[in-house]
Each structure stands twice: as C-alpha cells, then as structure tokens.
C-alpha cells in the first residue's frame, strides 16, 4: 500500500489510492466457482428429494418398472472418470508451460466425455423403449430428472472443453479460461459417482 491513512492533500481531501492491485483469482475462475457451488446445491436438493421418495416407498424400485443398466453405466462411469484423469494431465502440462504436451490429453478428455454422453443417450433410448418414462412412475421421473440435469451439464462442459481445446490449438488459451473449464469439467466428473451411487445402486 502506498497511501498513509489520514494523510490529506492541499485541498483537504484524501488522495485517491491508485495502487494497481494484482488479481488474486481470474474472474472467470471465481465466476465459475460460484456457479458450480450453486449447481452443487441444485444436485443436493434433487438427491435429497430422491432419498426421501425412496425411503417413503414400500418397495424400491417400484414393481413393473424396468431395471437400470447398473453394469453398463458403471463401465461408462469409468470412461468419465478417465476423462477427468486426462484433464489432470493437461493441467500439469499447462502449469509446466508445456502447451504442446497438453493438447493430446485435452483431446482425450473431450473424446471420453463425448463417449460418456453418447452411451448415456443410448441407454436412455433403450429404457424409454422398455417403458421407463418421465411419467411412468416416481422412479422414472427422478431418474430422468437427475440424470438428465447431469447430462445437460455434461453437454455444456463438453462445449467448454471443445472451446478450450480450439483456443489451445490457436495459441490463445488463457489461464482464466482453462481454469474455468477445468472447474466445470471436474464438477461434472465429480458429481457423477454420487449420482450413480444414489440413483443406480
């Protein structure tokens, strides 16, 4: 700080402190962090409602409803987690300043994330064909709501990841944009095991 408290100029007013403050956290990172916190609360609310509905039901899952693909989704979860690992590798390369080394893990993360969404979509089509719809039961309603909201986030995160990869290729990926992308992707990856554990198991 360059200013002394209480010092006054010739006009009797305190001089304006023109010290340039260095940014503690990039704006994009802080904004994304706050957004992710609100999204965590959104998922917490849905999971809480699901837990109460599940505990109140005499039999869960309700009889006559198709069973969820537990094994296939477990495998798909591994794919999503692997994309998180790929992004960690990209993060390390970024902080070492080795931008060329981070391109491959970024593409891998993008590809694995896309595979996850496509497989989820395929499972949804299969479940809809078997009669599990948003209106078939509370089970179906909660399933499509919670997993659907996660899928929307996954779509958004893939878009962001694609933008970050393009920027990296063109040589203008900033730490702020990459940090924000990382936070959102890690949120999508991190919340999935909880959703899987609560909804599928």
């Amino acid at each position, binding site marked *: 700080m360059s200013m002394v408290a209480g010092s006054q100029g010739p006009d009797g007013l305190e001089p304006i402190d023109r010290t340039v403050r260095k940014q*503690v956290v990039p704006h994009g990172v802080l904004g994304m962090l706050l957004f992710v916190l609100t999204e965590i609360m959104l998922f*917490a609310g849905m999971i*809480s409602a699901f*837990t109460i509905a599940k505990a*109140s039901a005499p039999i869960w899952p309700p009889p006559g409803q198709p069973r969820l693909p537990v094994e296939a989704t477990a495998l798909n979860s591994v794919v999503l987690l692997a994309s998180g690992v790929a992004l960690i590798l990209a993060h390390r390369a970024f902080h070492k300043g080795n931008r060329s080394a981070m391109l491959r893990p970024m593409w891998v993360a993008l590809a694995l994330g896309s595979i996850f969404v496509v497989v989820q979509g395929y499972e949804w089509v299969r479940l809809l064909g078997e009669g599990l719809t948003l209106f078939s039961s509370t089970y179906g309603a909660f399933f499509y709501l919670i997993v659907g909201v996660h899928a929307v986030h996954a779509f958004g995160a893939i878009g962001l990841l694609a933008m970050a990869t393009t920027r990296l290729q063109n040589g203008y990926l900033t730490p702020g944009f990459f940090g924000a992308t990382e936070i959102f992707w890690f949120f999508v990856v991190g919340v999935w095991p909880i959703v899987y554990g609560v909804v599928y198991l």
Partner: protein
Amino acid sequence: MMGMRKLACAVMLLCSALLVLFVVPSWAEACAVCGSVQTESTRKAFVGTTAFMTFLPIGMLFLVVGWYIRRTLEKEEQEGRFGDR
C-alpha cells in the same frame, strides 16, 4: 404517529396469524411433508437430508472463503518478496 400505526398493523397481523393457527390449524401447517412421515426409514431420510442440506453450503462456503484467503496471502507474500528487491 406513524410508529404507532405500524405497531398496530404488526399486532393485527400477529393476531390474525394466531387466529388462523388456532381456528384452522390445517391451513397453518408450516411443514407440508411432516404429516406424511409414517415409517422410521422416512424419518431417518428427513433427518439425514436436512443435515446434508444444512451443512453442505456452510462447508462449501468455508472451503471457498478459506481458499480465497490463502490465495490472497500467498499473493501478498509474493508481492512483498518482489518489493524487497
């Protein structure tokens, strides 16, 4: 004068609320789901999710604020070090 009117309004509002509470208690139920708790598992789910929804935001807030303070201190320390040169 205005203060007295405000106080009178507040007292009337309170009396109306109490009247509703005692005359038509079913209208005044604050908890829409408490009456539906019939089993032990549901009760446990309510307690668990209430605790979850209470402590999760508080925990997150502490984590984020703590992280921000740490970053600020690190930054200030760095700036101080460069300033000495």
